[in-house]
């Protein structure tokens, strides 16, 4: 593993970044065990390619008016997939709007994701990871939820952890600090992952905070901070895996800064050319995670052209099937907006629901 200053990164005090794969995909010594497992590595790769393909399809649907505003994760696939791959099924994920890869890895279906981004609440009623949180939109506001859920695990003596992901912008918000602070005091099984893509819409990292790194912020609350190369799926998975173990077994929370880059616009309604140089983006394309992992797979595990093509075909079919299922899903009945407001509808609201169901324009 590459540590510019050996041992220092874990203290959060330097710029040392944990990394196993160089941008060209060649390995640095001391790879973790799973990296030599061909099947596992292929599965990791598959999820990243699937995520990118899902992203492309979502953007295409949005452009043709068949999906709402969408936030692509282009270039950040290794953070989301790597982190989720380190989780156990009964851990829980608390994602933001840019961790499709993590949700997919956790078993949220592509159809569910399309539904959510298409404006249908049923997209957050995952058939798979039943206790995972839905996509969080108010930045950083889900971080205290992770602490609460982790506290529940600890109180019930369950060996589970909560994994919460958010962006570099989120670290400026009080919610981030308050939640990490109490996680430190209470020592709950929680792993906080910053997907630092260098931008919060148009605001660059340097305008968010003057701290040396984001990982170093752990010092302020007495929890360990680590910086990891977020475009190296092997490193992300390893570092998050270690942190999850510490959380589950020792109830020790940690903060992981995954350094990555947002290659696309902020969302489909954003135009990044207004505020950042193409040249900067071009530079970062050379570090992007999928080509890197493919190079590693090819060199270390003999990943073949045929396998690659089969994978792309399989993924294309899976995404297309999901699009079809999504487009075939009728909207809910309007009155459904009352159906999960409370466990059972208070009599005081029966009239409103009836009005909506009967569309009779009554007196509300």
């Amino acid at each position, binding site marked *: 593993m590459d540590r510019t200053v050996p041992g220092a990164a874990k203290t959060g005090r330097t710029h040392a970044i944990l990394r196993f794969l160089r941008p060209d995909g060649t390995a640095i010594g001391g790879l973790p065990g799973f990296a030599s497992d061909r099947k596992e590595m292929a599965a990791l790769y598959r999820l990243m390619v699937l995520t990118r393909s899902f992203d492309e399809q979502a953007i295409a649907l949005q452009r043709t008016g068949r999906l709402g505003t969408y936030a692509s994760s282009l270039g950040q696939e290794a953070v989301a997939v790597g982190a989720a791959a380190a989780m156990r099924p009964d851990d829980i994920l608390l994602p933001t709007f840019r961790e499709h890869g993590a949700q997919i890895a956790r078993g949220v279906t592509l159809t569910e994701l399309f539904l959510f981004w298409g404006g249908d*609440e*049923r997209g*957050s*009623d*995952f058939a798979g990871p*039943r*206790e995972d*949180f*839905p996509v969080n939109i*108010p930045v950083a*506001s*889900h*971080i*205290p*939820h*992770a*602490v*609460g*859920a*982790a*506290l*529940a*695990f600890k*109180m019930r003596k369950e060996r589970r952890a*909560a994994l919460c992901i958010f962006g570099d912008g989120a670290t400026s918000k*009080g*919610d981030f600090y*308050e*939640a990490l*602070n*109490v996680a430190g*005091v*209470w020592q709950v099984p929680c792993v906080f992952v910053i997907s630092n893509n260098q931008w919060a819409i148009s605001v660059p990292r340097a305008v968010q905070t003057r701290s040396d790194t984001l990982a170093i912020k752990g010092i302020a609350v007495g929890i360990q901070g680590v910086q990891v190369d977020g475009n190296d799926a092997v490193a992300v998975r390893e570092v998050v895996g270690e942190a999850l173990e510490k959380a589950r077994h020792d109830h020790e929370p940690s903060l992981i800064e995954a350094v990555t880059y947002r290659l696309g616009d902020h969302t489909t309604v954003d135009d990044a050319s207004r505020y950042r140089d193409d040249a900067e983006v071009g530079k970062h394309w050379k570090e992007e995670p999928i080509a890197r992992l493919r190079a590693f797979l090819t060199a270390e595990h003999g990943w073949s052209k045929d396998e690659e093509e089969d994978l792309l075909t399989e993924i294309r079919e899976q995404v297309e099937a999901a699009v079809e299922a999504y487009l075939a899903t009728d909207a809910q009945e309007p009155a459904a*907006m009352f*159906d*999960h*407001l*409370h*466990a059972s509808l*208070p*009599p*005081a*609201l029966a009239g409103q629901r009836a009005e909506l169901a009967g569309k009779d324009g009554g*007196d509300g």
Partner: protein
Amino acid sequence: MAELTMVEALNLALARAMADDETVLVLGEDIGRDGGVFRVTDGLIDRFGPERVRDTPLAEAMIAGVSVGLAAQHMRPVAEIQFMGFLYPAIDQLVNHASRLRTRTRGRLTCPMVLRAPFGGGIHAPEHHSESMEAMLAHIPGLRLVIPSSPARAYGLLLAAIRDSDPVVFLEPKRLYRAPREEVFDSGEALPLDQPFVLREGDNVTLVTWGAMLKETLEAAERLAAAGAECTVIDVATLKPLEMAPILESVGRTGRCVIIHEAPLTGGFGGEIAARLADQGLLGLLAPVTRVAGYDAVMPLPRLEEHYMPSVDRIVTAVERVMSFG
């Protein structure tokens, strides 16, 4: 059966809920060893331990947010915000999360949490400690807002709030914390949520209020009765969702309604009740629907607060005015 203060009744309800259901825990600032600055959680840490009676760092948004996470994981957190004046940072969690977790996930995740906070004036407290801003919370879909007005109702409603499967904000009128006392039987029985309580019946005027203003309202009713005007007094208790039936029914009978609250007039929850009367009850109205409320001014510091809060006199005057019609 004992004569308890509201603080003691709330403490009894918390202890009962914690004894009955091990998923119930209480958290907040100073609620552990100190027993809460008003002593509502007094002794709970000795009985249930520091895991379930948990002092938090000083951060109200966090208290609410952590409670959402606990509740989504099948716990029943009862969080205390030390004073309503410090509840505002928690509103984001209430609006954007607690109140809609069930809706957002179509029932997959739920949020059975209670957020308690003392509110209201009249105890000569420092700046920011005396406001009544319940209307801000009564506007949030998916949230219940409950306000008890006596020790027994505090006991029964708090139990109901804790057992409810959805988020409840439970505002406690601190002016009533230590007096009057009332018989409270630790029956473990909850009172119904979403139902106003009719505390007094009379055919001339309907007085509608909640929380600490019940004190002045009942006193006014007493004084008015002596003068020949019989008032029905309704304690709304659950402001959201608002069950109007008993109010409509009563005003249908009396034709006259005065609504009383400590909170500032404009945008106060009295407006909602008056509006419902102006729609669903208009034809039976014999007189203007009048509100006696706090002024649209910042709650003054103690030297002037008594002038801010509705007095028995102001209520009586308003009733006399509505009685003068028709």
